[in-house]
């Protein structure tokens, strides 16, 4: 039943995409947090993501849980291989969560400054780690014939290519977060934030161009499928259009459309990643043909995949329905009140 395995792969990629589109702006706001100097501005930043960041983070849980459910071999190997970097990532996620929750609980400037710095550092660290994990997956990690990891503990993940992808993801999220903030603010602060978007876009474009060139030269396996099927270049073209549309919409004052363009950019980038890496879930740098963990050799039994499909068919429409409702309730500009952070 190849369709069930493909279906679950699509779900996994969808979870990554939703995570990047939604928690991406939370992390971007975090990465910009220290650039706002006034306490009120920082509170507006926090409350812009306040009601939704927790739900956004669930997509990461869905992603990891989805791997456990549908591709247990990939889950076990991935988490064992990235053991120490993961401990770092988890610490980052913990500190991000408590920094948002604790920061405004006390009036003391030292208290607030400490959590501001932690919120910033945690967000930057999470964005970089997510990107570096992605970079390592593109490049491949050493797996033996039992699909067990055989590489180093920390240093082997700090490859130049992985760092490059880490920077790309950080730039991407910072741009996404800046656009989100422009959408959620008004007046003077909004004008100021509009000024941040342009450097953010330039930073992203630079990282994007360099990563694309390096991928073309040093990671040819990622672009093989694109070369074999030239019609897939439509995706790359759409992506360029989505990016180009962002400054245009901001110029026209349509912040919502600018944000949607940024979402489309993220989605297209991840679809390109999926197209390039399929069917590998974890590309092996040793004998990739036999040692890689793929959608097919890692999949759960047909029964489990069928049950999962039913769960998704019932659950996901519900999640999307009330997700939409919640975002609708909190649409519009941020206003601070006594229940705010």
């Amino acid at each position: 039943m190849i369709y069930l395995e493909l279906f679950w792969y699509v779900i996994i990629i969808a979870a990554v995409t939703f995570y990047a589109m939604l928690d991406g702006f939370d992390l971007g706001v975090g990465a910009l947090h220290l650039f706002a100097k006034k306490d009120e501005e920082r509170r507006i930043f926090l409350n812009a993501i306040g009601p939704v960041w927790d739900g956004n983070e669930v997509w990461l849980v869905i992603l990891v849980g989805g791997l456990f459910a549908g591709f247990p071999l990939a889950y076990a190997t991935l988490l064992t291989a990235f053991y120490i970097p993961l401990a770092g990532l988890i610490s980052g996620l913990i500190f991000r969560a408590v920094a948002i929750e604790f920061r405004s609980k006390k009036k003391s400037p030292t208290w607030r400054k400490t959590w501001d710095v932690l919120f910033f550092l945690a967000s930057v660290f999470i964005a970089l780690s997510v990107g570096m994990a992605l970079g390592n997956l593109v490049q491949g990690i050493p797996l033996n014939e039992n699909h067990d990891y055989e590489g180093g503990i920390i240093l082997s993940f700090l490859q130049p290519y992985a760092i490059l992808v880490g920077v790309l993801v950080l730039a991407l999220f910072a741009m996404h977060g800046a656009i989100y903030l422009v959408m959620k603010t008004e007046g003077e602060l909004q004008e100021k934030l509009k000024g941040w978007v342009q450097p953010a876009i330039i930073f992203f474009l630079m990282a994007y161009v360099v990563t694309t060139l390096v991928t073309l030269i040093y990671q040819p396996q990622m672009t093989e499928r694109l070369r074999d099927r030239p019609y897939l270049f439509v995706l790359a073209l759409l992506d360029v259009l989505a990016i180009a549309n962002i400054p245009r919409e901001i110029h026209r004052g349509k912040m919502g459309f600018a944000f949607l363009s940024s979402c489309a950019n993220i989605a297209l980038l991840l679809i390109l990643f999926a197209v390039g890496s399929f069917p590998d879930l974890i590309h092996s740098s040793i004998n990739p043909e036999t040692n890689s963990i793929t959608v097919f050799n890692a999949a759960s039994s047909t029964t489990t995949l069928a049950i999962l499909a039913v769960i998704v068919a019932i659950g996901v429409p519900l999640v999307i329905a009330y997700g939409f409702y919640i975002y609708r309730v909190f649409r519009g500009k941020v206003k601070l009140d006594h229940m705010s952070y």
Partner: protein
Amino acid sequence: MDVVTLSRIQFALNISFHYIFPPLSIGLGLILVIMEGCYLWTKNPFYEKMTQFWVKIFALIFAIGVATGLVMVFAFGSNWGNFSRFVGDVFGSILGAEGIFAFFLESGFLGILLFGWHKVSAKMHFFATVMVAFGAHFSGLWIVIANSWMQTPTGHKIVGEGASRRAEIDHFWEVLLNPSTLDRVTHVLIGCWLAGAFLVLSISAYYLLKKRHIEFAVRSLKIGLVVATTSILLQLISGDSSARGVAINQPIKLAALEGVYETKAPTPLYLTGYVDTKNKTVKGIEMPGFLSFLVYRNFKQAVPGLNQVDPSLWPNVAVVFQTYHGMIAMWGLMFLTILFTLYAFWKKKLMSSKWTLGLLVVSVIFPQIGNQLGWYTAEMGRQPWAVQGLLKTSEAASPTVTAGQVIASLTLFSFIYLLLFILFIYLLDSKIKQGPTGVDDTPEYTKALQI
């Protein structure tokens, strides 16, 4: 120490610290539903303000619960790679359901619960509160189902050999409704209600002791007391049913919990005592024949002892005996606390009885200890198995992870948890001292108040 032992210590640390918070959110979630329900029912704005205070406490607990829960999603794979490969197919649909049905529900509607007071109608806000509480219960349900399958696995088949040996799902509903699911889900959820109810009792009693926010405290205390009384009685039924379930499904575990080494009739029950592992006896206060009665409903029949199987298949009898009896002792303490409180209420002496109020303040710790000891009993009582009869804990760890890696992450998480715990207590304390707002005592209420 070897990787397995270190991984067990790490998992115990992760789960123990995490398990302080979800029971509180589940229990407090139920109480929020009751409180806000009172607001909708009576239209008395006092209840709205009351709910808002408890929501703030809830938010603090929930935040740490989510942050530490995230660790669990990764911990299965990072430290228990072989376990994950083995159970992945069975756990897949259970955890998938938990994520999609429960996590989104609670995290999504939490935004409305915390920040939606002026953005949606009162009824819609109540709906969000119900969804958060329901989501919290639901996630508890799924994860306990997964754990119950580890205790009493059914509905699966074993495929493959050696490194690729794994359990595959055969009958979905048999996996979900394995023999211990119903007992254990009920037992855990009631334990959570107790945790939430005693938190409310403790904080309310603190205000009564300090003679602050009297109306707020009395109204909260009454709701907490109703939940606590109901739960403590239900827990008696659930505990009895769980113990009999263990006797049928995991007889060795039950024998270890009560220190029954030899199968002989009638089998006694120990109220308290200690296990002399060398001489294989228990010394303590015994009730002759009561274990027979508990299991078979007669005082004569022999309960099978540990001697039926090889000692290599025994859990650590001395430890699980204590955790099990400690858990029951906590039930006793909670029961007595409730009894004293109800008596003081009835005699209209609660306000003046510093002693009862003081007991209520410290009582918040009883369900916490009970819940922790209960989990130790459940998990250590199943040893040496990770999945009863199918996979030993010694075979469950990750093949390539080294002791150094586990020590490094263990140190990191110990440090983070310590920090989080200190901050949690500090912030909880300052929230409590700051007290609720907008709930000044109404003169008619406090005048009529005779407790």
